[in-house]
């Protein structure tokens, strides 16, 4: 039987969730024996023409047009989506900027910072534009499995993967669920 394909993407996040995934140590071997990892942040695809996958995993919230596009593509190509971490699940620390307009935010960051001389706003057709607000992934597309945590513990990630590999889609159990 063909192994299920898994794609993981890194949107507006700190890579902490992927680090927590790597923190599974020898547990990684079991997971890699059970699935085919197709796309990950390490494969560094630029065109994001994802192959079809059984499970798409998202780290990070949605804060710009590129992340929005990736998420929509991932949804189209994957049977199931799993959100990793507080950023993907709730918006996380990125939502701090939701109380500030994008203009004010960029002006402060690229022009007004104390160390900046002759700053300019990064506006270019090649650069993705910021969305007015940072969104949790389930505000954009439907999500099947949620693994919150900042970062989610390796145990939580392993549990979620094992459950979905065995065909169960459930809420995170109380003993494993954590937000911090």
């Amino acid at each position, binding site marked *: 039987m063909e192994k299920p394909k898994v794609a993981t993407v890194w949107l507006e996040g700190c890579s902490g969730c992927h680090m927590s995934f790597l923190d599974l140590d020898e547990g990684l071997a079991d997971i890699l024996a059970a699935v085919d990892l197709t796309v990950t942040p390490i494969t560094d695809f630029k065109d994001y023409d994802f192959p079809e996958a059984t499970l798409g995993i998202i780290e990070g919230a949605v804060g710009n047009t590129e992340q929005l596009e990736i998420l929509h593509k991932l949804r189209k190509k994957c049977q199931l989506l799993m*959100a990793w971490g*507080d950023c993907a*699940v*709730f*918006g*996380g*620390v990125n*939502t701090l900027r*939701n*109380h500030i307009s994008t203009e004010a935010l960029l002006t402060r960051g690229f022009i007004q910072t104390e160390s900046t001389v002759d700053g300019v706003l990064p506006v270019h057709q090649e650069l993705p534009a910021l969305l007015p*607000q940072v969104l*949790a992934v*389930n*505000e954009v597309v439907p*999500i099947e499995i*949620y*693994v*919150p945590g*900042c970062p989610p513990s390796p145990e939580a990630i392993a549990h979620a993967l094992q459950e979905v590999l065995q065909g169960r889609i459930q*809420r*995170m*159990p*109380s003993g494993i*669920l*954590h*937000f*911090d």
Partner: protein
Amino acid sequence: MDAIANISLKIDGIEVMVPDGLTILEAARQNGIHIPTLCHHPALSAWGGCRLCVVEVDGAPRLVAGCVTPVRKGMDVVTSNDRIIEARRTILEFLFAERNHYCMFCAVSGDCELQDLAYEYQMDHLTVPPLQQEFPVDPSQDDMVMDHNRCVLCGRCVRACRELVGDSVLDFQNRGGQSLVTVDVSGQLGGSTCVSCGACLQVCPTGAIFDRYRTHYAVKGKSKDWVSKESFCPQCGLLCPTVSVVRRNSLLRIEGEMPGREPDRGQLCHKGRFDPVKTTGPRLTEPLVRGDDGTWQKSTWTAALDRIAGGLEDVRKNNGAQALFALISSCCSNEELTRFQQFITTCWPEGYLDTLDGRHFRTLLGAGSLIPEVPWATMLEADFILQVGVISSQSHPIITSLTRRAILENKTKVAIIGPENPIGPWASFHLPASHEELLLTVNAICIKINPDLATDPAKGTLSHVGTKGFADFIKLIEDSEKTLIIIGEALTEIGDSAVIKRLVDLAQFKSHGASQAPRLIILKPAGNSAAAWSLGVAARQSARNQLKGGLICATGEDGWDPVLIGTPGNLDFLAVLTPYFSETLARQASVLLPIPTWMEVDGTYAFADGSGSRFKRRVLTPPPGVGSVEETLTALSGRISTNPGQPD
């Protein structure tokens, strides 16, 4: 009184018998059945705001809040099924979505009732989009921060402030999702009428109110490493019960015992809750001896003790034993006080032994040797409270709180004579008498009540005597059945025994003769003053002029001893036993010996009213090498000749 009838009902299919009048929540808890709550707190009135406690009654389609619905005979209650769980989880999602609850940078993550409920109900995502609305943060106060982004509007803080503390500083402003807990009239905590007691902090189920001390993860660690230790606070004679949260011998916080068994309802004051966790300067962990160049040098215990014995012996040889003194803080436990007294009477019987607050004792002594008092808990029984010289916001904040509650709950009238007092705006009368006017004012009152009480006719006149306000005030005393007089430390400090004598007589007169104890409370300056004075540690005569050298045992951090250490003239030698390096003490001292803090010793402490005492178990372990006061004094007395010859 008729016994309350028991009624039977079914909870989760189990037949239970509970007293009529209970709520469903109380009935369930009595029978060990879990119903989650958030706005409900056992020390506060029921609120019914959060609806986390919804249950199904008789299969009705509408769920009811268990915390406010009374039980009824034959009721069939279901506390948990899919529908109820879904409802509770949805409520939690709304709470999380309404404000900005981000656990990863919250000071109370891991110790948060909202978070615990979200875990319990497996709220692993939100089905409603977060509101993303910014709310204010109020960091204007020294002890606590109020972050409205984490507030769930459960109103516990509002109820605690009103029901426990009687302060009503907190209330709600605005409506719906814009509602905010407000301080005074839309003010901030800093500069408000808040007394920093932290009752709101203790009952807050989220990180909306958090304290500024020891909240960092590096300090507090994970809640699984915490140990809660029951004790009490000996900083004043009310001895409020406390629960100290400790991690690896490091104090994280102190909480009141809620729901409280005593009339203070489990509240603590700012001293009891926050002072012990504040960083108060360098801890002394080994003896320090002043070198020849005037700087402090670390020393061994042997060398330091020898130096003290030698220094004091020199003073005795040069000036006689009557030039030696021994002063001890009245914050010390009975055991420490007794050992200290024993030490001085053995080593230098002619020496001067006193407590640091001895002058308060001598003022009271001038008014009569044994002044009986009533327990402070009787404050809530009085119909009129006369406070004279009370600065209770400093030494006995709980007395201020109980006074406010007496006014609010029992319509007790309160009159204040003396310095400005936080009760001022609540009182029926405030006579701002200066020290010089106190005797005249009290005399004027006594003459009006019963001319026999004023044995010494008042000289001079006072502008407020003879006004309508004063006449009303006298009428209140005359009409009151249960007048309670509280004598504050501002009065004992100025040393006017005559005023105290008048007040004691007035209390006796109003208590209708000697058959009843006069309704009188005397506030003592330090936590264990009552014991220190009754044990005879405080001197009956002040004799400081001829003192040349001695020993001081100070318990608290610098500035804690309510009475400043007076400079006993130009000293030849001074040794100080103290837990902390204190500039005030170090200026005069030649040797500093470390002792444990009050949190680090087992000890007995007396109630201020003399009604008994409590044994306190230590909450922390002293630093290695720091022995108890008793051990240090034993080691020292072994070095002092108990049979000294005459001065050379």
